[in-house]
């Protein structure tokens, strides 16, 4: 019982990440009609926003030691972050909170990246065949990740959560289990709540604003919206920017769970596509539902009890579910007819 509870919890934060990436992907599908293979790269760029911001905050004042030397004979460099030199303890706190702080900066940065991508490249591909969209965005994804690699290297870069969020919550005690049996890291809870918050924001935005109304209309029938005389180009740009922000924020907040490296976008790309398709192309609710569903089922499939009966099931569960869903429900859980079937 406690094992199952734990796996549900595990599924929630994983599902949160899947849902956030898939959400942006499906918005782009639905409104712009673009298959964006660079969406994983946006997630990765978000994560590297956090890395860069920590690097900037952590810019160090270097003094050469007069007495000590390194193992290879040069004088030892003594370093101290400038924020600490300037602000003392406050600086140390800012550094400690670099991941949450990154969110504030990642929003404009990702919006800018999204706008540049859309204006500079994606908009020329609205009417092009899906295969060409895939190729060009895939090329872009490779270029972006290689640029990141040449700047930051290939190894993962640790991004610890703030000290105050490193601990765990003992859920079990609250509902009658022994202490220490059902625990959940604070940061993962933060991530889950954060993802709910962002999903809620996106939904509210699309549901309750006039801008969102156009987006919804666009997802229902792209042709007609073009005829309404609305400046659809500008709105598409903003839609892409929003999708970029959502993916980027998912990346920023995920860094304490998964040390970012340049390749992480590709790893999430395939998964998020599966999530989008299982949820139903162009369906926001479907993406979120499928994200959490796959996250939780993946967690269950990884339990020893399950693996004993079906060896290797944890490796293929996501794909197995995708196949089953697509065969039983041709357009995914909540997809509509005619979207992306051509």
């Amino acid at each position, binding site marked *: 019982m406690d094992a199952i509870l734990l796996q549900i919890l595990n599924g929630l934060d994983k599902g949160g990440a899947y849902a956030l990436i898939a959400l942006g992907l499906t918005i782009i599908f639905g409104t712009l009609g673009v298959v964006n293979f660079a969406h994983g790269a946006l997630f990765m760029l978000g994560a590297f926003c956090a890395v860069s911001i920590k690097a900037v905050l952590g810019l160090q004042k270097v003094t050469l030691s007069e007495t000590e030397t390194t193992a290879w004979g040069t004088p030892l460099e003594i370093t101290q972050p400038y924020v600490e030199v300037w602000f003392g303890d406050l600086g140390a706190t800012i550094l400690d909170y670099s991941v949450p702080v990154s969110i504030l900066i990642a929003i404009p940065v990702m919006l800018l990246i999204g706008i540049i991508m859309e204006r500079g490249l994606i908009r020329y591909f609205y009417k092009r065949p899906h295969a060409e969209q895939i190729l060009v965005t895939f090329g872009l994804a490779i270029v972006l990740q290689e640029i990141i690699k040449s700047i930051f290297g290939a190894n993962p870069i640790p991004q610890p959560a703030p000290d105050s969020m490193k601990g765990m919550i003992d859920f079990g005690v609250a509902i009658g289990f022994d202490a220490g049996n059902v625990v959940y890291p604070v940061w993962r809870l933060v991530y889950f709540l954060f993802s709910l918050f962002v999903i809620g924001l996106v939904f509210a935005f699309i549901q309750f604003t006039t801008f969102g109304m156009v987006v919804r209309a666009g997802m229902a029938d792209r042709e007609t919206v073009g005829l309404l005389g609305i400046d659809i180009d500008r709105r598409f740009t903003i839609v892409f920017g929003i999708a970029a922000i959502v993916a980027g924020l998912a990346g920023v907040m995920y860094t304490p769970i998964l040390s970012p490296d340049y390749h992480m976008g590709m790893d999430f790309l395939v998964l998020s596509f599966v999530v989008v398709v299982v949820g139903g192309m162009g369906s926001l609710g479907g993406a979120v539902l499928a994200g959490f569903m796959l996250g939780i089922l993946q967690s269950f499939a990884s339990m020893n009890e399950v693996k004993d009966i079906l060896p*290797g099931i944890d490796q293929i569960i996501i794909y197995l579910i995708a196949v089953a869903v*697509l065969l039983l429900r041709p357009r995914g859980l909540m997809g509509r007819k005619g979207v992306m*079937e051509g």
Partner: protein
Amino acid sequence: MRFLGMNRSDWLLFIGFAVVTLAGPIIFSPIGAGYPDLLQKFAIYGIFALGFNILFGLTGYLSFGHAAFLGVGSYTAVWTFKLLTMNPIPAIIFATIVGGLFSAVIGFISLRRTGIYFSILTLAFAQMCYNLAYSVLTPITNGETGLQLTQGDPRVLDVAFGRDYGAVLPSSDLFGIDMTGYPGFYFCGVMLIICFFITLRIFRSPFGMMLRAVKSNQNRMNYTGLNTRPYALTAFIISGMFAGLAGGLLAVTDPLAGAERMQWTASGEVVLMTILGGAGTLLGPVIGAGVIKYFENIFSAFNETILMQAYSALPEGLQHFMVTLSSLFVGEGWHLTLGALFMLIVIFLPGGLMEGLRRLRNLFTKSSGGQGPGNSAETAHSATPA
């Protein structure tokens, strides 16, 4: 003029293709690609892409799981070597058949859906194959290490014919001709030529016309009395068999089969080869395969020392600058070049490299009446891939 039902320009195309293929070692050596392994890869991935193009280029079904058939072909071939004989003929026959069987099963299920749903289904099947081959199926696939020959393999047919390889590990040989090096390339090259011939026949046949119709308008096909699913499935199986053959040939020239051959990135690679060269064209996929393999093997090999030599004529400061700049794109940065190339091609040449060639040709032959003489099959090629 017709011979075997094919007109003169098709025969010229075919003979030209065969000559270029067989003369590969000379033609490609000035650009540093005239060594056996890369030539073999050109031929093998050419076959893979040709087959993929029959599915994607003609019917428009974008499969993201074709690497699975390549991998299955390789495993089959290595097992044939281990159990039966080191002769490559049975190995490639079995590889083609098993590739076909796998594609029949996966195709039958996946073709129940169209568009991106079809793509994701094929992707899911291929990823399952890959993940299982890497881990749980290790007794059959030897997992990460890859399936290799051992001295203790039974090789019953070789034993029956008194063939003894002694204490060394055998390599595949065609009645005494070792399938490594140039002979290996010629074996693959001949296979490529045969496959090209088959593809050419399919392209020009009523069947090929039906496949183009599948891509163009399935609704109309149905109301025209044609059953689209078996056409698409046949194309899927043919391309699966090509992939199986390519996988078998990989094992013939190098008897090792690794699981990563089946990963989605490998499936993506063949998609890129096809689109890069020009989906739906005859030559495009082979050219695309060559370009990508060339980048992978030659661009990745440039290191700083080589760059320093290349720019040695420049003054030292500029030399260092140029070396630093260039090294972003070669050596460990070869992926960057590849990514940028994809973008440039799609943005400026949506029909792939073949469209570039066509534009060049039109540039030089503007006076000769533009599009007039092209028959319908030719013009169908110029349609953008969807």
